[in-house]
């Protein structure tokens, strides 16, 4: 049952319905708090998804124009596609693979533990692992993470068999098929994985956790959720006391609406979140809403990533089965003797021929390129995901010369690798090559980072208002009833895939907001 709230009624307005926004919508409505969720994209259902890479991409991806700058290869190869994220109800949880490692204790305190790193804007989180642990537990149970809380591991698929055998032979110990938020057996009313190999295209089988299959329908069933798809927030307005009082949004016809707000929670992923804050600049907030620190849009992180695809003389068929059900944690430790601070995971990954062709070596052609594809059925693949350094100059800004279809400035994403990022990637490529050579790879190819799937840091948490945008609860330092509920709040990125941490933070934030609403502090 879907609620409908008056646009003039001051309510809790959540912008975005992904890992952060969808979780907040459920947690708040479950506590009896009515919410309006503004979702820029359409309400796609699991049965709408298609098992075809380009068709699904065009159906799900955020394709509104964006621009890029900086020395990252994305600016050359995919200048208008800095990020590969979703514009639909459920947000990027409908497209994610499913790996759910936690942050490590020291990853909340990198400035203290790593020390000063030239050119990096490291800062300790105003939060510890111990404080987040109960919420990690709740997030893992909600998402059905394998390997924890009694959830069984997924079985080994073909790509994992190569990955694990290689890991074993080069001496890695900490490898398994998860933690991974896709059901190995029926759980939480959803079926076990049928290993259909389609994750980035949305999971038609509903075995993979997403807010589309869990939090949104549960929030709907409370009768307290007013979900408005195809509603693109364009501005948060404030009253004369500096409190957020409404959200302006465009519907699918481009008509502007105003929804009054008592509390505003922004969870639009780390490119649109700072964009919205910057679009909300007024005389009282000349540099953008909640930006007295000047940190809105800065410290953009995307994880240090890359892939290695290795060809064998025997069949692998990596595309069969769960895409990322394979994790090696050995290199996720902090060991500066490797020549960089922080760590990285190796995780299985596969693409179909259409996407492998597009991403394996962008710009490439000729016999060396086509050999990579000829080996398709004998190819195994993995992904590197490691901590990258926050840098003030890596930044989301408004592009004042390029406008979207509504006449609004598009976001520009500027990114340069930090030398630490480059050193980590180089190490990871070499380890991945060793891994595959150990099980007889004929060749291994280094694939550069894909358009960013992990977008982080552009409204970071800080103890002191001058160092960041939000406090330890994700509340804006400058605006008492404005919260950020997505990966933008990450003070630093850690090595872990971010979704679990976004969900854990959102559950914790919802508790805080509910408490403060009850005590009238909000």
């Amino acid at each position: 049952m879907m609620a409908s709230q008056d646009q003039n009624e001051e309510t809790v307005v959540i912008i975005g319905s992904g890992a952060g926004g969808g979780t907040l919508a459920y947690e708040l409505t479950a506590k009896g708090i009515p919410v309006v969720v503004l979702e820029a994209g359409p309400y796609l259902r699991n049965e709408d998804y298609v098992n075809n890479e380009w068709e699904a991409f065009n159906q799900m991806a955020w394709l509104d124009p964006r621009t890029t700058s900086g020395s990252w290869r994305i600016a050359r190869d995919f200048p208008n596609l800095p990020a590969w994220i979703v514009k639909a109800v459920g947000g990027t949880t409908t497209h994610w693979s499913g790996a759910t490692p936690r942050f490590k204790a020291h990853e909340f305190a990198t400035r203290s533990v790593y020390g000063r790193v030239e050119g990096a804007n490291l800062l300790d989180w105003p939060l510890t692992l111990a404080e987040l642990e109960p919420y990690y537990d709740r997030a893992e149970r909600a998402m059905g993470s394998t390997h924890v809380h009694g959830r069984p591991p997924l079985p080994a698929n073909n790509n994992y068999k190569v990955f694990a055998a290689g890991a074993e032979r080069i001496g890695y110990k900490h490898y398994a098929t998860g933690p991974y938020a896709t059901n190995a057996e029926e759980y939480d009313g959803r079926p076990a994985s049928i290993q259909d190999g389609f994750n980035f295209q949305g999971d038609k089988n509903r075995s993979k956790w997403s807010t589309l299959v869990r939090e949104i329908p549960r929030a709907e069933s409370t009768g307290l959720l007013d979900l408005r798809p195809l509603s693109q927030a364009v501005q948060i307005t404030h009253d004369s006391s500096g409190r957020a009082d409404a959200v302006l949004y465009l519907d699918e016809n481009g008509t502007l609406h105003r929804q009054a707000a008592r509390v505003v929670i922004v969870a639009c992923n780390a490119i649109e979140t700072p964009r919205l804050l910057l679009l909300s600049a007024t005389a009282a907030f000349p540099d953008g809403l909640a930006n007295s620190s000047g940190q809105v849009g800065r410290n953009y992180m995307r994880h240090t990533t890359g892939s290695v695809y290795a060809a064998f003389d025997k069949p692998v068929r990596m595309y069969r089965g769960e895409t990322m059900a394979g994790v090696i944690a050995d290199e996720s430790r902090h060991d500066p003797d490797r020549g960089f601070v922080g760590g990285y995971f190796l995780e299985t990954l596969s693409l179909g021929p259409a996407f492998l062709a597009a991403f394996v070596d962008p710009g490439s052609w000729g016999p060396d390129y086509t050999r990579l594809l000829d080996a398709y059925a004998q190819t195994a693949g993995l992904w590197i995901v490691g901590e990258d350094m926050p840098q003030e100059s890596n930044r989301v800004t408004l592009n004042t010369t390029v406008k979207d279809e509504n006449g609004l400035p598009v976001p520009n994403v500027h990114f340069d690798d930090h030398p630490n990022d480059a050193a980590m990637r180089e190490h990871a490529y070499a380890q991945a090559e060793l891994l595959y050579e150990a099980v007889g790879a004929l060749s291994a190819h280094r694939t550069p980072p894909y358009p960013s799937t992990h977008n982080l840091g552009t409204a970071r948490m800080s103890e002191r208002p001058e160092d960041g945008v939000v406090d330890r609860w994700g509340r804006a330092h400058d605006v008492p009833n404005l919260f950020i509920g997505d990966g933008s709040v990450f003070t630093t990125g850690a090595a872990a895939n971010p979704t679990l941490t976004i969900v854990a933070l959102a559950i914790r934030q919802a508790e805080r907001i509910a408490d403060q609403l009850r005590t009238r502090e909000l």
Partner: protein
Amino acid sequence: MVFPAKYPSLNATELTDEARSVLIRVIRVAFPHESFPDGPYERTADKILDEAQESTWFRVQLTQGLLSLGQLAGGDFRDLPDEQALRVLRRVESTDFFGFIRRTTVLNLYDDEEVWETLGYEGPSFDKGGYVHRGFDDLDWLPEPRIDYLPGEVLEEIAPGAPVPTSWTITTQAVPGNQPGATSAQGREARK
């Protein structure tokens, strides 16, 4: 203009059947797959021609670019053996027209069912019940791996040699793997 007008033919702006057949040869040479039949190459060429029709500028560039290959080949590009044809394409690699062909080919040639079949990719699988009973784990040339973390194996989160502030208590974590267990670290309080 990409090329000087002293070659009058370079001013041609309409794509001919001959241009189509040169284009197919260009794609074959630039993206050589011995196992691919002609169909995917022809469909890709037609896709490029279709897209070129949508933009006068692309059409002009493509027409002139394809004609220029004849100049560079010293005859008909289609008559060159693979090696020589590849060398000619290397010379035009940075031109707009070749970039247009390359991009459009990458996006379309491999999004083709006949190509998938040739490469051994099975396409949509949900309607067939996924691969859970159709070989998701049929790789048999490596030992069966374990799928769980080793019980009792501790991941050392910070290497022993790493300099860390004395205020930071180093502890290690119990399994499972990267999941903190009951003994997880309680260090910190050191802030900048």
